[in-house]
């Protein structure tokens, strides 16, 4: 099975060289090598069927048939040794702490701008900066109840942060479902491994949500606000609400009376204290943001302003996970915490800066260019893989609006074997780690390993044909 496997010039998570697995992969490697192809194939297919039967699908947009797809699953887990994870955990907590302090600062005194560490213009012209929520007293000054930090490993095998997601990071349900399917169909793979279990995680999440209830509320009524079943992340919303034992509500289930939020029940109105919202800022309240939005609740922001309800993640968090601000996060860590960043960024070029712009435009064939407010892997330029025409077209876009773009060197993301029916081949992976902020920050053990299934592709996003893997954090 591994006979035709190639490592090429990438960091391979499983193999140091052909035939020589890293120690924490040895047992699994032996097991995989022993299993007949046909059996792996049958079990691989059983896993995909399992997702469909459970209805763990996402809706494909731009398709009026309302097609549903499952995210393809690969059974080779991403195994992370205990010590490596511990270091990573500390680095993630450090990063989220600094980002939270930044958000609190930006919407209050803006000391960091006064001290000139970040150009003011970059913050105030950001599409996700909302002066509407300035000076609002946020319980525990906690703007980030849940962060999703995307990590990659470079060709030295060192973790780096690729992106911060501080608005509505999704995918947590898939972490559980990947584990569920893995345990059912590939239970023998766990032999001789001690893996951190995930069952107790929802206790932490629930505590984090309770801890940010408005003052004086000890047993808060917490709800999860979803745009509804047609949202591509609906499964995520429904799963999390179920596991937390909280109501899953849509905007039409809520109403505001005298600056207090209520939900409409069969027995009349019931007060709501904490809203874990999975609706974007712009759609939360038609009176404050987009007037055409049918998803939100008129008057919600006013109730928030009055301190009668917590909305989490905070409104306007997008200013901190903007791709241009990303460059400054290491500086934020030094500024707010007086510490050196434990996890490195990926080098980033600003196209607003003339010198850097010229460099980027001359080296488009070596770089990855991203829109600062883009997400979902759309409208990326992957220089080395693009055609000359594609690069030229992108160049025009950049020159028109350079502020809108950043560029990064093409990172040689690490790879893990993926089963392709008859053989294994190496595919690039990344890891979305989840951090929950309550009285104390807590890192979810593992996270969502995404894999670029298209041969040679670097894009792991599910909307771009990416898949998922189980993630094991070792306890020994």
């Amino acid at each position, binding site marked *: 099975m591994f006979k035709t496997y190639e490592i090429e010039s990438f960091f391979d998570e499983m193999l140091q060289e052909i035939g020589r697995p890293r120690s924490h992969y040895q047992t699994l490697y032996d097991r995989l090598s022993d299993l007949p192809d046909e059996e792996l194939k049958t079990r691989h297919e059983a896993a995909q069927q399992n997702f*469909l*039967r*459970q*209805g763990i699908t996402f809706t494909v947009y731009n398709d009026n048939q309302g097609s549903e797809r499952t995210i393809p699953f690969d059974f080779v887990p991403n195994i992370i040794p205990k010590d490596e994870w511990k270091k990573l955990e500390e680095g993630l907590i450090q990063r989220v702490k600094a980002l939270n302090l930044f958000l609190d600062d930006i919407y209050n005194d803006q000391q960091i701008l006064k001290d000139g560490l970040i150009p003011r213009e970059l913050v105030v012209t950001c599409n996700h900066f909302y002066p509407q929520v300035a000076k609002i007293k946020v319980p525990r000054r906690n703007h980030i109840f849940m962060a999703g930090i995307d990590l990659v490993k470079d060709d030295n095998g060192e973790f780096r942060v690729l992106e911060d997601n501080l608005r509505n990071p999704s995918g947590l349900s898939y972490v559980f479902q990947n584990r569920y399917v893995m345990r059912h169909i590939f239970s023998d793979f766990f032999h001789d491994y001690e893996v951190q279990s995930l069952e107790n995680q929802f206790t932490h999440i629930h505590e984090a949500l309770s801890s940010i209830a408005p003052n004086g509320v000890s047993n808060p009524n917490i709800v999860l606000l979803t745009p*509804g*079943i047609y949202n591509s992340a*609906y499964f995520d919303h*429904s*799963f999390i*609400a*179920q596991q937390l034992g909280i*109501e*899953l*509500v*849509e905007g*039409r*289930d809520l*109403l505001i009376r005298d600056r207090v939020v209520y*939900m*409409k*029940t*069969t027995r*009349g*109105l019931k007060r709501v204290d904490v809203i874990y919202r999975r609706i974007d800022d712009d759609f939360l309240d038609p009176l404050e943001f987009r007037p055409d939005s049918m998803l939100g609740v008129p008057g919600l922001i006013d109730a928030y302003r009055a301190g009668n309800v917590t909305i989490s993640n905070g409104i306007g968090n997008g200013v901190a996970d903007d791709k241009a601000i990303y460059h400054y996060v290491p500086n934020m860590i030094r500024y707010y915490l007086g510490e050196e960043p434990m996890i490195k960024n990926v080098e980033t070029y600003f196209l607003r800066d003339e010198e850097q712009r010229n460099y980027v435009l001359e080296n488009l064939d070596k770089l990855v260019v991203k829109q600062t407010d883009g997400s979902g892997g759309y409208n990326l330029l992957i220089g080395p893989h693009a055609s000359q025409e594609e690069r030229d077209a992108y160049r025009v876009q950049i020159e028109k609006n350079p502020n809108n773009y950043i560029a990064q060197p093409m990172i040689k993301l690490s790879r893990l074997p993926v089963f392709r029916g008859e053989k294994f081949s190496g595919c690039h992976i990344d890891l979305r780690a989840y951090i929950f902020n309550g009285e104390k920050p807590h890192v979810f053990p593992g996270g969502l390993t995404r894999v670029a299934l298209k041969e040679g592709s670097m894009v792991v996003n599910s909307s771009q044909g990416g898949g998922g893997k189980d993630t094991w954090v070792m306890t020994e």
Partner: protein
Amino acid sequence: MLSRVSNSLYWMSRNIERAENTARLISVRLIGSIEHKENHWDELVSIVGANEDFEKQFDRYDAKSVMDFMSFSSENANSILNCVKLAREDARAIREIIPQELWEMINAFYWEVKQYKHENWSPETIDDFYQMIIRQSALFQGMVEATLSFDEAYLFIKMAKFIERAEKTSRILNIYYYRSEDPEHNDPSLYRHWFAVLQSVSGHEAYLKKHHPFITGERVIEFLLFDESFPRSIRYCVDQVYQVFQKLEQGKIEHYSEELLELIAKMRHSFQTMTVIDVMTDDIHQFLQEFQSNCFKLGRLINKTYYLGEVGV
């Protein structure tokens, strides 16, 4: 419980029950038509009250058109495919409320219906499809009983099922009673007719146990209206609806539920005090139509009492 959630539970349950009733109705007619060249396929469309929609799409009531319309048509809001699709959408909207097993069952049910190659069906093979619908519906009922806590969610599912069932039984009786009045009927064909009516609600076996193979219109009507223990007789269904509300309101009458409980008590009362003789000497059609209009009122009052549907606060 959120009103929207109750609304979804209610419609999920009604649509599953509706799909099953339609499947059984067609299946029985299908068998009748094989042996006896029974036509009158239009009756089935009348029972589900969709003649207008049917006539927009088809120009005659032949077997194939009616089966296609009632099973697969997207123009027919109550086709089996649509019912299962709506039930699944409602289930999906509340999958955090219902047990995972139940959701998986409904999801698999939907895929099975959707993937049925309905372009190629033939009268010889399609009965398998209807039997599958009936089986899946039974599976749904079984899972509800076996996996759901007997709380508000369960009560809404149960209430919806029995309202749908009672209404469908009354519609079946109403339309088929017209046919029995047809002077062309001879004794054997009348016997067959009433036997088919019983089969349409899966009641022939229960009936035979009670009355042996002596089937008359009057007895069938009595059985389907007044039998206290047959799960698809109207009286039984109304009793169940009454008990659901007693539980839901914990035996109390509050001002907001007063009107609703009064209506149910009134409906129940008429089945407790009337006999089949009363119904038949008066006007059976009028009796059944009044029952149906009460069902309609009941639906409206449930909406109002529990803020279901688009009713605001």
